[in-house]
């Protein structure tokens, strides 16, 4: 498959301090890079101008889920074969993308999701580990699918998955919504071991306990009003 049929989507909100390094890495992959600048107020927009990428600007901050959906809509317009979700905060490693893509390219699954817990080399901080365990459990209640990791931003979707998923959760609840929609559309899901870089910056950007409560409330509301 031509690597230009593969679209790597990075939702970015105020990532100026790390974005240059992240982009320099992912660009080497040769995939089509799409950055959705989600209403950033720092120098994110300026940094983007220096790279051969597609820039999509949200005029206001909508959230990561909304930014990913905008990127996926763009990929659909461009008739992409595969879409990759990649966080712009530097927590993912660009060379993990190849492993993530393999089962999708081999036709083993429609949706490949990164899991930090399948890679024993990941030193997940204790508190984060407990939050993620709880999130994995709650996610399994909402989606009926038991995964080893929750809210891992590294995913690969084939064309079928790209056209089956339509994220309406603008913020972080999109990660659970995505799994739920995948199940409803009978998509084949596979988890792939990936590394996650824990720095002060990525820890700050990650989900806290309060954010988790907000996600649960959002999902509950959606269940009630569906």
């Amino acid at each position, binding site marked *: 498959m031509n690597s230009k049929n593969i679209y790597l989507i990075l939702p970015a909100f105020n990532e100026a301090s790390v974005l240059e390094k992240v982009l320099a890495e992912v660009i080497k992959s040769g995939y089509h890079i799409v950055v*959705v600048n989600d209403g950033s107020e720092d120098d994110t927009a300026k940094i983007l101008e220096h790279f051969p990428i*597609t*820039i999509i600007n949200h*005029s206001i901050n*909508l959230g990561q889920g909304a930014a990913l*959906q905008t990127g996926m809509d763009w990929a659909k*317009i461009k008739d992409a074969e595969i879409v990759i979700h990649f966080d712009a905060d530097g927590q993912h490693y660009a060379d993990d993308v190849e492993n993530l893509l393999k089962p999708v390219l081999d036709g083993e699954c429609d949706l490949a999701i990164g899991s930090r817990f399948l890679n024993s080399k990941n030193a997940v901080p204790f508190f984060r580990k407990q939050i993620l365990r709880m999130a994995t459990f709650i996610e399994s209640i909402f989606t009926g699918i038991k995964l080893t990791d929750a809210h891992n931003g590294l995913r690969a979707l084939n064309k079928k998955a790209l056209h089956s998923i339509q994220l309406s959760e603008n913020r972080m609840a999109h990660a659970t919504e995505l799994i739920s929609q995948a199940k409803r559309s009978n998509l084949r899901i596979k988890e792939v071991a990936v590394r996650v870089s824990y720095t002060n910056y990525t820890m700050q950007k990650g989900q806290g306990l309060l954010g988790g409560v907000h996600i649960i409330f959002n999902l509950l509301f959606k269940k009630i009003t569906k």
Partner: protein
Amino acid sequence: MNLIQVILIIGIIVLAVSYFRWFRNTGRDLFVIAIITVIGLTFVLFPNITNRLAHILGVGRGADLIFYLCILGFCFALLALYSKIKNLERKITELTRKDALREAREVKD
């Protein structure tokens, strides 16, 4: 008539009039708000009715019954408001996305 009854009657009437002045004015709204207003005024003017109702429903006092109903009403209003906010958010998202996709650019080497 007690002073609190006067205050509550004025409050109920002001709220009902304000709703129709500033918000929706459909026939259905008029009907629902008129019923709620009449029930509210009846409870304020004839508090014994609430006591009798409370006993029928197994609640100690009429005031307690009103309090429980208020909590229910408050939760319902909160849910309705949240739903409206979500709808608004969806419309803003659609607009922003449409605009962003139209203005998308590919930066060349």
